[in-house]
């Protein structure tokens, strides 16, 4: 991040204090900062590095899977690759991504605060994440882990001789980073809201980060304890899950999934918040059913803790428990469905423009719908019995994680990039990347639904020849996706040097973060803003945007690229 000081943008009557980027340019001022905006950028840098590492592992796996026989890497290397892909992507990219980068940067500003409640804890959270990441990378470099990111016993405790203990320690430390961030955000939303920002006036992005923080705080400890138990069994030979001494490996799965299912909601909820902000801004409409959206977010967060058993329908779980979890899993599909319908309804009667972040958001709604609908398949016991542990599951969670969450992350990154850097990126380039990512994604992961139905199991180094065509398609799609992920690096970097000055509010959005300079000063606001209306107030409730107002919108956008009529 270059630190060219940005003078206050020309159209400000008074000169603002220098932006947060200008406040201190030494390495020390970055590494010891307690400014939530800088910590957000530190996280942006670290998750980008982890995203690359996880992506490389995925690329090698997809290349290996082009041929039925394992001829690129050995079976052990392949097992270490998919474990690395899982561990790095889940704990060091998907979970931290939106909350710690966009959340850290935007949440305090969106509620009109000067900073998060515990700034020093916020910095500690980043260092814990880096410490955990380093431990995990050291485990990788020394020889990697071959248990899968789920660490199922007794393989992870008794039969794997890879660096399970080191990797578990890394994730354990990173877990406390999640708890620290979650705790920080909850207290921030409770105590740092500006005057007039009541609970029901909070932007839905803030609601989604708040709900995610609740899950972060209540779920992550279960992961911490189950990893501690694995280390306890490996290092001290405790008989916690050891079947030869009467232990029950399924108990491990219970405590693990008690964390890991809410964890998938940690990954998707922030994405939902970002999409709501983007859809409302670029369709110039209030969100459809604000209260329903809030209760849907809270419903997903709380109900997410009741459904973990659907991961264990075939593991030997009792029929009684499986049916309870099946019912609860069907019920939790309802809030997700509400959100999808409300997003679609938000577009009704709008003035929709198709900036890059809008394309990502629309892509999110489509792909998340497919991911969610396949979730219905997995909630029903007999269907799950056939498709679980196959590529149907791989496709399902990639539709939600990559199709949903990564699209939303890119939507948010594009939406707030002008606010973070004060510069505009090249719109055309970004739209091309968005479309390419949408195409590449579907070509990569849709064939995997069919592979799963045909019965190709997960984590297979070599597979029967019948599956080769679909795997080839998937690998070809992965190349497009890799290219699509590379493009943003290019035009975002270019925007830092040659990007147009963004001005305070390039998208004319209504969030509080847009009411201050871009990039914002260290204290976010010259004086604390006062809120007097509901969020997304794009058109005063009664007035319809007249033709003239529409035309005026057109002019003051000066050289905004003309819209495709």
């Amino acid at each position, binding site marked *: 991040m270059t630190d060219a000081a940005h003078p206050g943008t020309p159209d400000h009557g008074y000169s603002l204090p220098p932006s947060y980027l200008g406040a201190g340019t030494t390495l020390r001022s970055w590494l010891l900062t307690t400014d939530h905006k800088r910590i957000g950028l530190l996280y942006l840098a670290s998750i980008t590095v982890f995203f690359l590492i996880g992506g490389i592992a995925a690329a090698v796996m997809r290349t290996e899977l082009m041929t039925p026989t394992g001829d690129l890497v050995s079976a052990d290397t392949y097992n270490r690759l998919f474990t690395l892909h899982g561990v790095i992507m889940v704990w060091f990219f998907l979970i931290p991504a939106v909350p710690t980068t966009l959340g850290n940067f935007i949440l305090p500003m969106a509620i009109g605060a000067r900073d998060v409640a515990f700034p020093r804890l916020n910095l500690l959270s980043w260092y814990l994440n880096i410490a955990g990441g380093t431990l995990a990378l050291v485990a990788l470099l020394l020889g990697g882990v071959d248990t899968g990111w789920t660490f199922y016993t007794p393989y992870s405790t008794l039969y794997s001789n890879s660096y399970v203990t080191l990797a578990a320690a890394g994730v354990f430390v990173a877990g406390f980073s999640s708890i620290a961030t979650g705790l920080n955000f909850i207290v921030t939303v409770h105590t740092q809201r500006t005057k007039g920002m009541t609970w029901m006036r909070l932007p839905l992005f803030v609601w989604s980060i708040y709900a995610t923080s609740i899950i972060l705080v209540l779920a992550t400890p279960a992961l911490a304890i189950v990893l501690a138990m694995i280390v306890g069994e490996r290092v001290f030979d405790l008989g916690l899950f050891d*079947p030869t001494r009467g232990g029950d490996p399924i108990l491990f799965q219970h405590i693990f999934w008690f964390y890991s299912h809410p964890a998938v909601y940690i990954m998707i909820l922030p994405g939902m918040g970002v999409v709501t902000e983007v859809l409302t801004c670029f369709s110039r409409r209030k969100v459809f059913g604000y209260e329903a959206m809030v209760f849907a977010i809270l419903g997903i967060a709380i109900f997410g803790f009741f459904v973990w058993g659907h991961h264990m329908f075939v593991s*030997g779980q009792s029929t009684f428990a499986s049916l309870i979890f099946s019912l609860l899993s069907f019920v939790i599909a309802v809030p997700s469905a509400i959100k999808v319908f409300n997003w679609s309804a938000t577009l009704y009667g709008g003035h929709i423009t198709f900036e890059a972040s809008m394309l990502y958001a629309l892509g999110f709604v489509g792909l998340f*719908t497919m991911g969610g*609908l396949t979730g219905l398949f997995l909630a029903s016991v*007999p269907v799950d019995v056939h498709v679980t542990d196959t590529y149907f599951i791989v496709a399902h969670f990639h539709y939600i994680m990559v199709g949903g969450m990564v699209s939303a992350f890119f939507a948010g990154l594009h939406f707030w990039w002008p606010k973070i850097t004060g510069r505009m990126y090249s719109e055309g380039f970004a739209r091309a990347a968005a479309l390419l990512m949408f195409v590449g994604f579907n070509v990569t992961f849709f064939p995997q639904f069919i592979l799963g139905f045909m019965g190709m199991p997960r*984590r297979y180094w070599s597979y029967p020849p019948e599956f080769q065509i679909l795997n080839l398609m998937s690998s070809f799609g992965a190349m497009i996706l890799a290219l699509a992920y590379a493009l943003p690096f290019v035009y975002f970097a270019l925007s830092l040097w040659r990007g147009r000055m963004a001005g305070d509010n390039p998208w004319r959005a209504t969030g509080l973060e847009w009411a201050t300079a871009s990039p914002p000063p260290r204290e976010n606001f010259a004086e604390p803003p006062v809120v007097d209306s509901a969020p997304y107030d794009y058109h005063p409730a009664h007035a319809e945007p007249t033709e003239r107002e529409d035309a005026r919108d057109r002019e003051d956008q000066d050289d905004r690229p003309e819209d495709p009529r």
Partner: protein
Amino acid sequence: MSGAFWSRAGAHAESFDRLFAVLTGFSVLILLLVAGLIIGFSIRFRSGSKVTRHKVSRLVHREIEIGWIAATAIVALFFFWWTTSANLQQAGAPADAMEIHIEAKQWMWKASHPDGTRELSTLHVPAGRPVALYLNSQDVIHSFFVPAFRLKQDVVPGRTATMWFEADKPGTYPLLCAEYCGTGHSKMLGEIVVMEPGDFAAWLDSRPEGAGLIAAGRALFTSAGCSGCHAAGSAVHAPELAGLYGRQVPLADGRVVTADAAYIQDSILLPRRDIVAGYAPIMPDFADLLDEEEVAALVAYIRSLKGDTP
């Protein structure tokens, strides 16, 4: 492998495919609805389009909202009811099911038929007859997955997993391991060979006269020294085993237990735990003398001892 992965073999597979088709249809419908709404609204209400934007009253908002919340909830519960009832109908294996034992070991499947015939990585079953599988793992969690039957069952070490199927169409169907179990996970393949009942019987007879499980148990009963005390004419005062299976056994500490398979197995492995009333605890501990299969054979033999024969 003649039976392609797509193929179906058995009533369960048919009912599964109906379920899967309906769910797919419903999902495509919802996807088209959502995509249609998004694309439709995006085109109709794009910025600068001349169409008039009607103001939707708050009441209509609320009605639409409640409308699709209720619709989603009803559809969700309907699917739950339908899939659960389908699941419960086939939960338990029919009584006359043929009992086969599967041993999962790191990276191979071993099957043993009731009459003792053993197979490695393949399983021959008669068509049109329910087959109940009892699965044990000797190391990590594996998963017995036959895509053509649309069935899989994790095999957790330390517990016996059960599943059952009834294949109607003869053919060879691939068997795969679906739960990650280490280096050879993707090599742990096998075949289920479904044969006409007649061919199956012929195949069974043609198998080399391997010691049946019960026959192996009878041989072990003497070779391991059990007959020394437990045979009818032995001088040692030891509990009578004939007709033991299923009987109520009074124990020295006053408890009364039913002699099921677990009791017999534990009495062999941990003799001092449940001492039969009126007998001295003199039985040696066999835990490290016999391996799991030999104990299973002894238990099968003791279970087969009817009241009359010694």
